[in-house]
Every structure is written in C-alpha cells, then in structure tokens.
C-alpha cells in the first residue's frame, strides 16, 4: 500500500506536449478516478505512474520515494490495460499465475489465488483456454484477474470495463468497488465514462487536453463545478447551459434572453448588462405551471420530445432558441408542441464567465 504523489509532471512526445504541470495527490487506500474525454492524456498519465512511459519532467512519488527512475517491474503495481495485453500463448490460468510464477510462489498458493480470482470474475470454465478462444469481455476479465491475484501497492486500471456489455459492466463496477473496500489498496482508475467515475470514485480527477480541470469527491465536482467543461462533462443528461445577459427588473437581478427571465441566486456576483452562461441541471429545471414563478421570473419553452425512463421523465424542450432538458419524477403527460414552464432552482444554478468558462 502506498500513496501516490505527482508534482509538476510533464510529458512531451517530440515537440507535442500532452501533459502540463500536473499535480495530484492520491492518499493511501483511496480510489481515484481519472476522468476525461478520449485523448486528454489519462492513459499517458497512468502509464507514467506505472513506469511504462518516460517522464519528461516532474516527479512521481510512491509514499516518499521518488520512483522516476525505478523500473516498472520494481514498482510493485498491478495494471489492467485498455487493450488487455494478455499473453497470447498462455492459458487463462497461466496468464493469471504469471506474476506469481516469477516470484516463485509455491504452487498451492498460486492455485488458490487463481481459483479465487476466477470465481470472482466468473472465469472458472475458461481457465485452460487461450486468450484467442475468449470473447472481448472474457479477455478483459482475464486482464482483471491478472491484476487482482497480485498484492500490489497500487492498482492501475485503464478503462477496464470499456469492452463489456452494459449488464456485465455494472456488475464488474460493483465487483471492483467491493474488492477495493476489502483490500483497501490505493487505486487509480481511468475512464471516459462519467457514470463509472461518479459511482466508483472516492475522488474524481477531471482532465482535459493534458490539464487537470478539477479534482474532488464525485458530489463536489457535480455540485460545484469549477468551470463550464466540468459542468458539462459530468451528469447525464448534461447540464443546461443558456447564454444570458443580466438585467434588473424591480430591483431584482435576472438572467435574460429574449423573453426569458431566469432567476439568479441571491448573492450572485453579477452586474447589470453582464453577459454570462447560465447553467442548471435537468433535475433542477423543475417543470411547473405558469403562475408558480417567483417575482417576475419567466421561463417557458416548447416541448419537443418526452422520454419516460421508468422512474423519471425526461422532457426535452426549446427555450428561447436553446435546447434544454428537464427531469421530473412526476408522471406528468406533456405533448410535443405544448408550452412548458420551468422554475430553475436558484440554489442549484451555476453561473459561468462567458469568455473563460470559469465559474463565477
């Protein structure tokens, strides 16, 4: 077990800089998820932690030991690769046993561990097959098995569930989380799937284009996004963003757009005439009736599509030329073309600088 500390980490491929002065602290035993769109440098960062990618500048520390120059084989980490990286000529059993064979663990312990991992991963029937005789999902589970039979200081996962079907993905998600709760091994988990990140992480680190945009607990980044990118990346359906201009009516500030008058939080740091981006998550776009608005606020749109998902209803509407989505737990029946009124919950309204995207 170890903490992982990263400071001022940079990565260049030739002249192209893919990671920019990253600082990241992963405390011992934490489950940290690196989240970001494809190509933002998650894998690169993970591979640098693993020792598979050279470090252009900066430091990687395990506990207080600088491991920049420690070979991957001596870092005592386990890793699940995005493309499995199985040993094609070895059976599933041998794939999982490989690290223990290298350490000359006795045969009985190896068998026990492999059986244990296979039962967790549902791989018992396949132990004597070769990787090419398995489906993508099964291969991915073998890669998982290879990692969990180890007793590493740090677990590294690079999108380990991306090739599984939806059902298995949810199941494995729980499995990994449970495993972490049991073993309490420091884990760094890469994904581009924000649901995975939200459900599994102790801490989420959101990356974009080689920068860390925000780090914090899932609820923190959900409730208090630092900027527009984080706000839009987290949450599904995504946060509604409406380009607005601040206006004063009867001494109260509103975010306005065409005929819209959207309510602002009480102490919002805005001034008359300021252009801003008004963000509100679908579940805070409470659909209601016209009269229910407070003061002069007016927010109405035209219903485009209604999607009942079972527990809730997603309503997509056009409001002052912008697409918005609202989620309601009431089983209200809207018809496309109908006018719909919203009451954005001012406790959950996010305001962003129109130029920089930074939260106000």
């Amino acid at each position, binding site marked *: 077990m170890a903490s992982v500390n990263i400071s001022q980490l940079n990565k260049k491929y030739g002249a192209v800089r893919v990671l920019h002065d990253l600082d990241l602290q992963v405390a011992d035993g934490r489950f940290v998820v690196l989240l970001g769109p494809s190509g933002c440098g998650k894998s690169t960062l993970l591979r640098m932690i693993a020792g598979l990618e050279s470090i252009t500048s900066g430091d990687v520390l395990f506990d207080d030991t600088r491991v920049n120059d420690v070979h991957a084989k001596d870092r005592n980490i386990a890793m699940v690769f995005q493309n499995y*990286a199985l040993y094609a000529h070895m059976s599933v059993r041998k794939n999982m046993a490989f690290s223990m064979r290298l350490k000359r663990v006795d045969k009985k312990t190896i068998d026990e561990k492999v059986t244990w991992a296979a039962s967790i991963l549902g791989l018992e029937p396949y132990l004597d097959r070769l990787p090419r005789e398995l489906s993508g999902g099964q291969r991915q589970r073998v890669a998982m098995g290879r990692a969990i039979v180890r007793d590493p200081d740090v677990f590294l996962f690079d999108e380990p569930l991306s090739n599984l079907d939806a059902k298995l993905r949810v199941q494995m998600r729980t499995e990994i989380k449970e495993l972490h709760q049991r073993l309490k091994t420091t884990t760094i988990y890469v994904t581009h799937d924000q649901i995975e990140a939200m459900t599994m992480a102790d801490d989420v680190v959101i990356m974009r284009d080689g920068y860390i945009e925000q780090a914090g607990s899932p609820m923190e980044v959900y409730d208090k996004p630092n900027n527009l990118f984080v706000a839009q990346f987290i949450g599904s359906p995504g946060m509604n963003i409406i380009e607005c201009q601040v206006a004063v009516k009867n001494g109260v500030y509103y975010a306005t757009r065409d005929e819209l008058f959207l309510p602002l939080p009480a102490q919002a740091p805005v001034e008359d005439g300021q252009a801003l981006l008004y963000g509100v998550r679908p579940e805070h776009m409470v659909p209601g009736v016209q009269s229910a608005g407070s003061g002069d606020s007016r927010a109405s749109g035209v219903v485009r599509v209604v999607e009942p998902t079972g527990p809730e209803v997603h309503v997509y509407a056009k409001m002052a030329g912008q697409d918005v989505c609202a989620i309601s737990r009431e089983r209200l029946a809207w018809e496309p073309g109908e006018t719909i009124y919203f009451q954005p919950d001012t406790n959950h309204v996010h305001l962003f600088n129109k130029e920089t995207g930074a939260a106000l």
Partner: protein
Amino acid sequence: MSERRVWLPRWLTSEHPLPWLFPVTSLLIVFGLYPVLFSLWLSFFKRNPATRKEKFLPSWNWEKMISDERVWDAVQVTLTYAFIALFIQLVLGLLIALLLDTDRKGFGVLRALMTLPLVVPPAVTGMMFLLMYDSSFGVISNSLYSLGLLSPNTPILGTASTALWGVIVADVWQWTPFMVLIMLAGLRALPKEPYEAASIDGASAIQSFFYLTLPMMSKIIALAVLIRGIDLFRIFDYVKVMTDSGPGTATETLTAYAGTIYFKSANFPYASTIALATLIVVLVTSSLFIKIFKVKF
C-alpha cells in the same frame, strides 16, 4: 460467360485452373521430377568401370551404399556440419536480431547492411575464406598465429581436426544474416503490450525473453531451422571450393562424395544412388520436423 471462346475446350479457358498451373508444373516436371526419376532409374544399374557397360541390377548400388564405410563417414560429417552450423547460425541470428530490433536512429542502415553477405555467391565466399585462411598471408590465420591460438604447422583447412570448422565459419558468415532477417521479421511483428504487462508483472528483460519472446517466436524459429537445415544438409559448394573434401576425407559430405564419384570415378549409377539417399533422408527428416514442431508456412 457469353464471351467464352466456344470452340476452345473448357480446360483451356482462363476459367479453368489448368492453364494457370501449366507453366510452373511443366518446369517442375522437367527440372524436378524428371531428374529424380532418371536418377532412380540410373541407380538400378551396375556399372562396370573397365568395360563402361551398365547392367540392370536393381539392388546392387543400394546394397553397396549400405556397406560403404565412406558413405557413413560422409553422413557423420554432414550431420556434424549441419548441426554445428545450424546451432551457431540460430543463436547468432537471434542475438543479432534482438540487438537490431529497435527503432533507434541508424539501426535501419545496420539492418540493411546486414544482408550484404547474402548477395555474395557461395563459391566466391569459399574463395574469400580460402584466401583469409592462407597460412602465409591469410588475415584469419595470421591473427590466430599472432594470438598464439594456432601454429603455422597446422593450417586450418589442412588439418583434419580444424578443416570442418574452417568451412563452417564461411557458412556462418554467409548465412547468419538470413537467420537475422527471418528473426527480425518475427521480432518486429511481435506485439509490444505483453512486454509491458510482463514488466508490470515483475519480469526482467531476460525473463521476458524466455517467457514471452521465445514462445511467441517458436513457429518462426522452427521455420528458419527447417529452411536452413535442409540447405545445410545439401552442403556442397564451400567444401568443394575450400577443401575439396580434404584433408583425406575429413570434410567429405554426402553431396561431396556423390560429386567425387560422379566426376572422378564416373560411376553415374552409384553417384545417383547416394544423391537419392541424401534426398530421402532430407525429405523424411524435414517431414518429421514439420509434424513434430507443427511448422506452418
């Protein structure tokens, strides 16, 4: 379909495989099958060296061969030669290929230069080494003399115990690059990811080589061994040029012996018998090898 020349028989049209197979098949028949069958036919005759008459006696040559001690000597020389040369070429080839298997700058040039010995005709290689072994001015001999590893009284190719090694060195010089080429092609095609996984699993470079590289390369290694093995078994040119089977019969291989009988004694039936026997041994051994090691082409 409608444009098919209807007056042609069907087997002569481009839709039929026969016209396509014809050229190469006829070449094989003329230059492959016919000589073999002719040798077989020849081997059934007993030649009288005095009268130069041949008499049909099917088992004569074959029986003679079995009891001919020189044949068994030649078998031993051939096997020694083939196994030693093959082993050295395989190990050297793999080692050099491992060194050249890198994306670093300049190694592309090295990889290309590596193939140079392959374009030298074997007879020229033989001549070249003959000169380098020369006891008065040969660079190899003189280097060995000055290092005290060899005495001028025992010239490399003129001494029974070293002559075969002298020939093997020439073969190794010429054919190791071939091994390197095959091994490099194999190594370059290996996936990188398992190596990363192995180093995460705690494998050193040496362990990765034995646990990953060798097993993943086994098919290619088997193929290379097969190709070179067959070639080495038929060794003729280096022996002919460098030692002419000498001293005595110390470097006489099967093909060299057959050549001697053919050209010097003019006993064509017996020479054919030995050549055929060589062919049979190669065929049987290589088929077994293909079976056992599951070589795929």
